[in-house]
C-alpha cells in the first residue's frame, strides 16, 4: 500500500464520516437534555433536499446550508411541540418525523431530480492541497472543518459552561431542575431545535460533498447509524468523533478492499457491509460489561416531563 493510497483512503473516510458525525453531535445534545428524537434520518433528508433546491435556484452554498439547518430545525420543532408541549410518545413521534421527512423530501425534491449540483470545495487555495500530504489537512469541504470545530464547541458547552450544566441537569433529573427554577421545556425545545439544525447540515453533506445530486432517500439510512453512534460513544463528544471516524473507516475500507481485489479481499462482500453494525454491537457489549451493566444514558432520556403529576 503506497502513501498515496493511504491518503486517498483518509480523504474518502473523512467525507463518509462527516454527515454521521454532524447528525450524531446534534442528537447527543438532544439526548443530553433528556429527549430521544428518532427522526434524524427524516431531518437529514429535509436538509439534503433544501440544500439542493437552494443551490440550484440561488447558486449560493452558504445560503443553502443555512436554509437546510432552518428547515430541519423547523421539522424538529414539530416533533418538539408534540412531545414536549403535548407529551406525546417520543419514540413514535420520532419515527413519524422520519416518515414525514422521507415523504416531504420526495415530494419537494421532484423538480430537482436529474440535475447536477456544484460541490462545495475546500476553502483553502488549491496550491495548498496540491501536495498529497497537505491535502490530508487542507483538502476538505468547509463542512468537514465545521464538524470538527463543533465537536470541541459541544464538549466545551456541556462540560465548561453554566448553560451546559443546566442542559445536563434537565436531562438527568427534570423534576429537580424544575423545582429550582429552570425552564425544563424551554431548554428541551432549544436542544431539539439545535439537533434538527445539525441534522439538516448533515443532510447538506450528501449533495455538497458525497454525491452532488438529489434523489429520493438520498441518505439511505445514515441517520440511523448516527443514532447508534450516540449510544456507541456513551454521550461523549470526543468519543463520538472517534466512533464516527471508525464507522467511516470501516465503510471506506470495504470499498477499497473490494476494489483492490485478489488477496486483499479476505472477507465476503456481505460481511464487509455488516461490519459497522457488528462493531456497534461489540462496543456496546464491551461498554456495558465494563460498567457492570449500568448505562451512561441521561436518566430522563425519552421520558415526558409532567411536573404536576
Amino acid at each position, binding site marked *: 500500500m503506497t502513501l498515496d493510497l493511504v491518503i486517498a483512503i483518509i480523504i*474518502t473516510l473523512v467525507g463518509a464520516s462527516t454527515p454521521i458525525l454532524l447528525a450524531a453531535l446534534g442528537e447527543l445534545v438532544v439526548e443530553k437534555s433528556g429527549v430521544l428524537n428518532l427522526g434524524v434520518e427524516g431531518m437529514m433528508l429535509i436538509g439534503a433536499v433544501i440544500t439542493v433546491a437552494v443551490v440550484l435556484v440561488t447558486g449560493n452554498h452558504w445560503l443553502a446550508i443555512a436554509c437546510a439547518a432552518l428547515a430541519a430545525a423547523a421539522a424538529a420543532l414539530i416533533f418538539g411541540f408534540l412531545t414536549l408541549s403535548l407529551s406525546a410518545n417520543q419514540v413514535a413521534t420520532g419515527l413519524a418525523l422520519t416518515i414525514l421527512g422521507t415523504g416531504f423530501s420526495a415530494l419537494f425534491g421532484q423538480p430537482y431530480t436529474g440535475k*447536477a449540483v456544484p460541490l462545495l470545495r475546500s476553502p483553502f487555495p488549491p496550491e495548498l492541497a496540491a501536495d498529497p500530504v497537505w491535502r490530508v489537512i487542507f483538502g476538505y469541504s468547509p463542512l468537514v472543518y465545521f464538524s470538527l470545530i463543533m465537536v470541541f464547541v459541544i464538549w466545551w458547552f456541556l462540560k465548561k459552561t453554566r448553560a451546559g450544566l443546566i442542559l445536563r441537569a434537565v436531562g438527568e433529573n427534570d423534576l429537580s431542575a424544575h423545582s429550582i427554577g429552570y425552564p425544563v421545556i424551554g431548554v428541551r425545545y432549544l436542544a431539539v431545535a439545535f439537533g434538527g439544525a445539525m441534522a439538516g447540515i448533515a443532510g447538506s453533506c450528501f449533495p455538497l460533498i458525497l*454525491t452532488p*445530486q438529489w434523489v*429520493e432517500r*438520498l441518505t*439511505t439510512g445514515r441517520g440511523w447509524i448516527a443514532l447508534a453512534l450516540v449510544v456507541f460513544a456513551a454521550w461523549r463528544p470526543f468519543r463520538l468523533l472517534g466512533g464516527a471516524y471508525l464507522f467511516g473507516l470501516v465503510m471506506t475500507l470495504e470499498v477499497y478492499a473490494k476494489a483492490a481485489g485478489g488477496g486483499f479481499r479476505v472477507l465476503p*462482500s456481505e460481511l464487509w457491509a455488516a461490519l459497522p453494525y457488528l462493531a456497534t454491537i461489540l462496543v456496546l457489549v464491551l461498554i456495558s460489561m465494563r460498567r457492570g451493566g449500568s448505562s451512561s444514558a441521561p436518566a430522563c432520556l425519552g421520558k415526558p416531563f409532567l411536573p404536576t403529576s
Partner: protein
Amino acid sequence: MTVLNRRTLIKIGGAAAALPLLGGAAFAQEKLKVAFVLIGTPDDNGWNFGHDTGRKYMLDKIGADKVETTVVTNVAEGPDSERVFRELAQQGHKLIYATSFGFGDYVHKVAKQFPDVKFEWATGNATAANVSTYNAKFHEGRAVVGTIAGMMTKTNTIAYIGSFPIPEVRMGINAYAIAARKVNPEVKIKVVYVDSWFDPAKEADAARALIDQGVDVITQHTDGPAALQVAEERGIVGGFGQGADMSAFAPKAHLTAIIDNWGPHYVKSVQSVLDGTWAEGSVWDGISSGEVEIGKYNEKIPADVVAAAEKVKNDISAGTLHPFAGPIKDNAGTERVAAGDIIDDGEFWAVDWYAEGVEA
C-alpha cells in the same frame, strides 16, 4: 393519463366500482385500460424512468383514442402489491404491467382470480395462461460499452460497480470483460459490489476507491449517476450511463449510455390485446428489436473507437456476433466455453464464474 398513489387509488376504486352500474354498453368505442405498476417514481433517471418513457411512446404510437393508461408509483415489492393489482383489475384494466421482479408472486395470485385480465411481469421467470414475462438483454449493451472501455483505457484497468452478485449482474460483468479483452488483452476488470440497488453515497465512494487504485473507465449496474459524477470530478477517461442518458450529470465523463427502451415491446403487447391475439409467452429481446439502445457517443471518443463500438452493436443486432461466443476462459484460466460454442439463453442463468481478467 392519471397518476395515482396508493391512497387516491382506494378512493377512485370506490367510485369506479359504482360505474359499471351505469351500463358499460353505452360506450360503443371503449378504450383499453392499461396499468403500469412501478416500484419507484418515473423521475429516477433509471429503471422506472425507462418504463414510463416506454408507456408514453406506446401511447403516442397506439393513440390516446384507443388506450388510456394508469400509473401507480412507489408500490413496494410485497404483500401490499397484491391489493394494488386486484384493485386495478377490478377497475377494468385489461392489461397490467408489473415492472419489477418482486411483484411476481402477487401477480400470479391475482391473475388466477381475473382470467380475462392480461398481466405482464418484467424480468419475471414464470408464466401462466394470462401472465407473460418480458425482459431485455442488457448484457448486449455491456458488450458495446466494454469495447469502448477496452480501447479508451490508458491504465488498462477498468471497473464495474455491481449491486448484488446475481446472474444478471454477473453476466453483465462477463459481457463487459469479454468485449474489453477482445480489443485489449491487457485489460483488467475490477469489480466492487455495493450490496444495494440504491445507495448513492456508497456508489460514489466505490468509484473513488476504484479511481484511487488506477481505474480510468467505470461502468455501474445500480440505479443512479453517482459513480459518473465522481468520474467527472476526478477527470478520468469516463463512464457510462445506465438505463438512461446521464450526460447532464457528467458532460465530459459520460462516454455513452445503455438505454432501456421498453417502448417497442409495450406497443407490440398493447396492440396484441387490442387485436385479441395476446398469448402467454416470454419475451427476452435486446439490441436487434430496439429494447436495448446505445446512447449518443461523447465527442471525445476517437472515430475508430466509435466505429468499433458501432460494429459490435450492428453485428449483435444482425446476429453475426454473440456476446458470449467461445472460446471463453474464466478468471482462473479454465476454459468454460469452447471455440464455436456460445452460452445460450437457458445456460445464461446458471453461470457462476467470471470471465478472464475479472478481479472479483
